């Protein structure tokens, strides 16, 4: 299964809708990082609302992906971590997810806009498609 990566101006939006195998998770990481580089994205929102299990492997993939995206120069937020996922991750060990998180995609996009604006990047798009 390939995770669709949607483009809103220079923001990328990826919503993980079902449980991924390790291979699919790595594929997603590489697809997303390539896409960020390709369009020189300013921000990326990864929505994991539908994930009801995030084990240490998946947490690492999410973390690494966020770090890679930041290295390229884009802002990133993880959206919709489920309460039981949060509890489990913290019980398992600290710092499994180090990226910035928001309750949902709406807030994620708002936060990206704010951060991109505060970086002084006025090219933020997303509104320009409307």
């Amino acid at each position, binding site marked *: 299964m390939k995770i669709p990566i949607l483009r809103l101006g220079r923001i990328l939006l990826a919503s993980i809708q079902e*449980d*991924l*195998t*390790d*291979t699919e998770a790595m594929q997603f990481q590489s697809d997303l990082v390539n896409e960020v580089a390709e369009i020189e994205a300013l921000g990326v929102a990864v929505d994991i609302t539908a994930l*009801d*299990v*995030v*084990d*240490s*492997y998946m*947490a*690492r993939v999410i973390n690494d992906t966020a770090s890679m995206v930041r290295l390229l120069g884009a802002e990133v937020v993880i959206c919709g971590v*489920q309460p*039981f*996922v949060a*509890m*489990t991750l913290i*019980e*398992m*060990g600290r710092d*499994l997810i180090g990226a910035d998180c928001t309750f949902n995609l709406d807030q994620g996009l708002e936060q990206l806009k704010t951060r991109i604006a505060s970086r002084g990047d006025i090219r933020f798009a997303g509104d320009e498609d409307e």
Partner: protein
Amino acid sequence: MNEPAPAERIAIRSHNDIVTARHAAREHSARLGFGRAYQTRLATAVSELTRNVIQYAGEGSCLIEEHADEDGCSIRVSVEDHGPGIPDLALALADGFSTSGGLGAGLPGTRRLVDHFQISSEPGLTRVVISIRKAR
């Protein structure tokens, strides 16, 4: 109703089987009436253990058993493989230790998610038994 059996054995041979095993763990715990927090803990623990099987032994098995009596109910999951074994169990159970470049949350992290955790390992047989329990 297509209910899962009280016991289920899942062969662990590929990454897909990790997903199958964690789904099965969640289904069995939901069926016994465990809340979502426990379902998530168990599913995550099973995911960690079955991944270890793939990573270190190549293949193995995961047995999920439901138990219910007048005092309450429990789910026991036994994950075993015939790989090289864990040379230093104490070290493998220490936080922050990993031989695979992971986060090192595997075994110690898994132990914190469940009510009971037992591990034995020698070359040719590694077995981890975990369980969660709920009073009636």
